[in-house]
């Protein structure tokens, strides 16, 4: 019988199998180590940057210590360097961006993942993602020449009239309109694709069974989203927001063009400000002094550390959603 023949011949190929498994094939071994080497460069670059930047900022680290982060003065002529105005500008402009972007991005994500008809999904996805493809300098130009003057003439007076009792919306309505507020708006538009598309992806990863379970109990569309989708993706959406926050903190070119670049802390959103990134972009070419360069590098190090941590946090949060019970991966 042919079957028994097969069984008798079976042991023969065995040595060849163990040959492959043992990695004696030289080509495969070389290939494996080569690719591993390339993969390692990513880690090496990260480590090298951290080490180099720390070394380059030694002078500033030794001179100012931790006080650097809280000092409010910035006076290069008298060698007084405080990072606080820039940290403040960075955080506040990014927070404004988040407050503006969260409702819009969630709306976009819910529409794309749950409600949009099939023919509309693809083009809308594309348009949202195109926003991310526009170079930052283009946003900067638009912010500088279109948005800022419009804000100054239309929006600022309106806000001052209606919400003027808040210190946030007080202050002079003169100048160029380049301000903390303008930076927040530009940042919001720039991080919208990130927040919206990551949120949409986590919502889409909710198993179909959850939605059908709720629908079959006599739930409306909105109830289905509220009961079956949102509670399961909160951590993923927080991850998307944190990712957007990280992007906003580090964004340089567009912010430099619209924020006004003044190292001052003002409660008014109409006033110009500066961020860490805009500060470095403005100053790096203007000095050869060792201490000044060291200070700028330390600013860079602060920004680097903060965005690195935020990115790790957001990755962890999004990753958790992908592992929910009954999710795509456990199917």
């Amino acid at each position, binding site marked *: 019988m042919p079957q028994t023949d097969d069984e008798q011949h079976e042991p023969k190929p065995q040595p060849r199998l163990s040959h492959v498994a043992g990695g004696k094939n030289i080509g495969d071994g070389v290939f494996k180590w080569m690719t591993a080497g390339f993969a390692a460069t990513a880690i090496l670059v990260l480590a090298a940057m951290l080490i180099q930047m720390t070394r380059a900022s030694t002078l500033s680290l030794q001179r100012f210590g931790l006080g650097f982060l809280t000092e409010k003065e910035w006076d290069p002529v008298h060698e007084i360097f405080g990072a606080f105005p820039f940290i403040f500008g960075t955080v506040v402009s990014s927070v404004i961006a988040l407050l503006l972007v969260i409702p819009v991005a969630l709306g976009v994500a819910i529409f794309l993942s749950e409600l949009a*008809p*099939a023919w509309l999904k693809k083009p809308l996805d594309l348009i949202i993602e195109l926003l991310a493809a526009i170079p930052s300098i283009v946003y900067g130009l638009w912010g500088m020449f279109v948005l800022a003057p419009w804000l100054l003439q239309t929006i600022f007076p309106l806000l001052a009239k209606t919400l003027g009792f808040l210190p946030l919306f007080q202050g002079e309505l003169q100048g160029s309109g380049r301000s903390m507020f303008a930076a927040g708006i530009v940042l919001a538009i720039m991080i919208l694709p990130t927040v919206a598309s990551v949120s949409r992806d986590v919502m889409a990863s909710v*198993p179909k*069974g*959850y939605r*059908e*379970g*709720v*629908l*079959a*109990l*006599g*739930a*409306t569309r909105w*109830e289905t989203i509220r*009961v*079956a989708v949102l*509670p*399961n993706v909160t951590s993923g959406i927080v991850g998307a927001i944190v990712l957007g926050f990280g992007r906003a903190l580090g964004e340089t070119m567009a912010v430099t063009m619209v924020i006004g670049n003044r190292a001052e802390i003002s409660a008014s959103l109409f006033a110009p400000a500066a961020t860490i990134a805009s500060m470095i972009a403005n100053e790096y070419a203007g000095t050869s002094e060792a201490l000044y360069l060291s200070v700028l590098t330390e600013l860079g190090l602060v920004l680097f550390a903060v965005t690195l941590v935020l990115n790790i946090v957001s990755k962890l949060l999004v990753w958790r959603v992908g592992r*929910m*019970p*009954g999710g795509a991966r456990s199917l």
Partner: protein
Amino acid sequence: MITAKQMFQLRSMSAGVGVPEEKMPFNKENMLHNSADDAKSVGKMRVEHLQAWFGKAEIIKGVSLSVADKKVTAIIGPSGCGKSTFIRCLNRMHEVVPQALVSGKVFLDDVDIYEKQIDPVKIRSRVGMVFQRPNPFPTMSIRENVLAGLKLNGVKIPRPDELVEKVLEQAALWGEVKDILNRSGASLSGGQQQRLCIARALALEPEILLMDEPCSALDPIATSRIEELIHSIGKICTIVIVTHNMQQAARVSHYTAFFYMGELVEFNDTDILFTKPGKQQTEDYITGRFG
């Protein structure tokens, strides 16, 4: 008395098999189970020339049948024969999928659920559904899972604790979970999760309970518990169950419909269908010659 053979013919005709749509004799009498055995039972749901599509693919090709009240009706057939799609049409769940289309009539107590002014959301609260894969809501506790449907429909629950106990008792789950009601529904075993889903559906006191292969993701012991459960709730509620397991259909149902390629081939008393099938295709399928 009519003979069994005559009865198949009657049912087959009423099911529209082999009869062109326009010539199909529609006779309300024929649609009901009017044999001597079930003279008392009334058609709870009546399906007339139901067609369903996904995009351009016609999945259900004009099916008519009648579901007897407070009885268990099983739907069997090979994979891809449209049996799941068919029951998803009975509570308007088919249409939630993009590109899905339905035509025909489905009467629930003489009201066509596909009529324009009918809200599908209301229909789904009257016609419950249990799915192939147990899907308790993972962010809710066992107790919240049971009450979820009532909360969604805005029903005031005077004594929620009693209701939770009663419904879990009906679903044969109370003994196992009475001390862990606040634990997540996802912490239960697969079979327990499925019984929780049944309890969740029963809490709404559905007139009909649709079950789409409710045991296909479960082991044999969990399966037999669900089957016992179907037997007991079949007395208080009309059940339509889809199954690819013919023994299961034979064990739990009063009536069985055999679907093939989107058409209803044969519909009869379960005992008759499995012992003296009226159609060659049915016989081939139940004897394992294909499918």
